[in-house]
C-alpha cells in the first residue's frame, strides 16, 4: 500500500526541500519506489537537488494542472542522477519558467486536480511513497496536500515565529484528521540542550519530534547541489535523516 507524505513548514527557509529530497532519496536507497512532487508552484526548487535544470524540464506539474498532459508525463526518473541503489525515484517538478509561475499566480488552478494527480501517480508509477514538497504557509493547495496525506512532517527552526506558526499548522492538521504527525527541528545551534528542546516541543504540540538537526556549515557548503545524505552517509546530518526515515517507517 502506498503512502502519501507531505512535508511542510509554516515559513520559508527552513530547509524543507533539502530534507524532503534527502528523506526521499534514503527510501529509494533502501529499495523503495518513491515519488517527489514539488507543489511549491510559486517558488519551486527541489529539482536542483536532483540535478535538474530548466532545459531538462519539458513537462511540469503546471502542464498537468492546465490539462496539457497527464501527471505521469510530467514525472522524471532521476534514480541514476543520485545513485539511489535498488529503488527508484521519480520527480514531478513545478515549472521554473517565470511566465508560467506568473500565470499560476494570476489565474490559479483547480486545486482538486492535485488530489487526482496524487492518486494517479501512486497508482501508475506503483509508488511505495509519494512525498509532497509543499508551499510554506497554509493556502488551499497546502491544505489539500495535508488533507490527503497519511503523514505530515512539519519542519521548524528553533525561533519564536516558527514556534507560533507550527502551533497553528499542527491544530489545522489535527482538524483534517491527518493520521500521523511528525515534527523535525532544523538549524538548531549546537549550544542548545537538544533533549530539553525536544521535550519542550513535544509537550507544547503534543506531537513527536523525529529529530533535531543541528545547523550545519557542511550542508550549507554543498549549496543544494547534491543529496547530502547519499554523498556523506556518516555525517551527523545524514544520521538524523535516517532517524526521520525510521519514524516514517514505524508509523506505516
Amino acid at each position, binding site marked *: 500500500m502506498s503512502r502519501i507524505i507531505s512535508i511542510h513548514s509554516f515559513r520559508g527557509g527552513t530547509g524543507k526541500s533539502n530534507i524532503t529530497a534527502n528523506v526521499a532519496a534514503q527510501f529509494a536507497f533502501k529499495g523503495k519506489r518513491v515519488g517527489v512532487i514539488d507543489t511549491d508552484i510559486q517558488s519551486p526548487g527541489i529539482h536542483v537537488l536532483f540535478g535538474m535544470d530548466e532545459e531538462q524540464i519539458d513537462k511540469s506539474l503546471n502542464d498537468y494542472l492546465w490539462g496539457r498532459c497527464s501527471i505521469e508525463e510530467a514525472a522524471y526518473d532521476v534514480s541514476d542522477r543520485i545513485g539511489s541503489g535498488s529503488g527508484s525515484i521519480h520527480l514531478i517538478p513545478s515549472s521554473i519558467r517565470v511566465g508560467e509561475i506568473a500565470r499560476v499566480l494570476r489565474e490559479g488552478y483547480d486545486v482538486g486536480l492535485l488530489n487526482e494527480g496524487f492518486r494517479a501517480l501512486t497508482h501508475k508509477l506503483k509508488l511505495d511513497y509519494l512525498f509532497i514538497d509543499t508551499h510554506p504557509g497554509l493556502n488551499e493547495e497546502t491544505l489539500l496536500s495535508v488533507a490527503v496525506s497519511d503523514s505530515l512532517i512539519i519542519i521548524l527552526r*528553533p525561533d519564536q515565529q516558527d514556534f507560533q506558526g507550527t502551533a497553528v499548522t499542527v491544530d489545522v492538521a489535527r482538524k483534517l484528521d491527518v493520521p500521523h504527525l511528525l515534527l523535525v527541528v532544523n538549524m538548531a545551534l549546537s549550544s542548545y540542550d537538544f533533549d530539553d528542546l525536544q521535550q519542550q516541543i513535544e509537550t507544547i504540540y503534543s506531537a513527536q519530534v523525529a529529530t533535531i538537526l543541528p545547523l550545519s556549515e557542511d550542508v550549507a557548503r554543498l549549496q543544494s547541489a547534491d543529496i547530502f545524505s547519499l554523498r556523506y552517509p556518516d555525517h551527523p546530518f545524514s544520521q538524523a535523516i535516517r532517524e526521520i526515515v525510521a519514524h516514517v517507517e514505524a508509523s506505516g
Partner: protein
Amino acid sequence: MYYQIVMTDQAALIQDLFSEETTSLQGVMETVRLTDGELLFSRGDSGDAFYIIETGHIRIFTLAEEGQELTLNTLGPGEVFGEMALVDDQPRSASAVAVGFATLRRLRREDFLAGIRSSPALALVIIQLLNERARYLIDYIERLGHWTKLVAEGQYDQVMGCVQANADVEDRVLASVADAMRRMVQAVQEREERLREEVAQLRVQVDETKRKRQVAEITETAYFQELAQQARCLREQAGK
C-alpha cells in the same frame, strides 16, 4: 631580545665615535658614577640625556596605582636607554635607579645636537637606533593585528599563548598592550560563555490566544470545512 642586541651594537658604535681622538666629539660624553640605590632620574623629570651602561645595573621603575614601586625592567652593561630624549624634551615616563655600583656614559641633548654638525656619523648612528625602535614597534603592531584576527576567529587559546610569550618583553608599553589584550580576550570569552548559556536555555513559547484566532481564521472558511469533509470520506474509503 632582538631589541637589546641591536642596542648593544649601537652602544659600542657610539662609544667608538666619542673616543676617536680625531673628532671634536672626544670628551663630550661624561661619566656618571652611581652608588647602590642612587636615583639617576625620576618620573616626570625633564628628559634631556641618553645613557650607555658601562658597568653595573640600572632598574627602571614606576609607581603602581596602589603606590608601590613597579619594576619595568633592569638593564645591564652595554645596554642603552633614553635615546628619545636626544630628539625631544618630553618628561621621563619612568624613574631610573642604580642596583649596586654603576658606571654610565651620558650624552646630553645639547651636546648631541652640537655634535651632529661636525659628525654626520653620530647623527646616523642615533637615527639607526631610533629606526630600530620604530621597526620593533611596527613588528609588534603586526603581531597585534594577527592576535586580533585570532580573536575574531574565536581562537582564544592560541591568542593567550602568543600574548603570554610577549608578556615579558623589555618594553613596558608593549607589555601593557599584551596585558590589555589578555584581559580583552578573557572578557570576550566570558561574555560569549554567558550568551551561550542564555541561548541554551531557549524557551519554546506559543501565544495561545493568537493560536486560536489564527486556526479559526483558516478552519472557519467554507473551503476548509468542505475539504475536511472530503478528507474524512477519502480516509473512510481507504480504510475499507
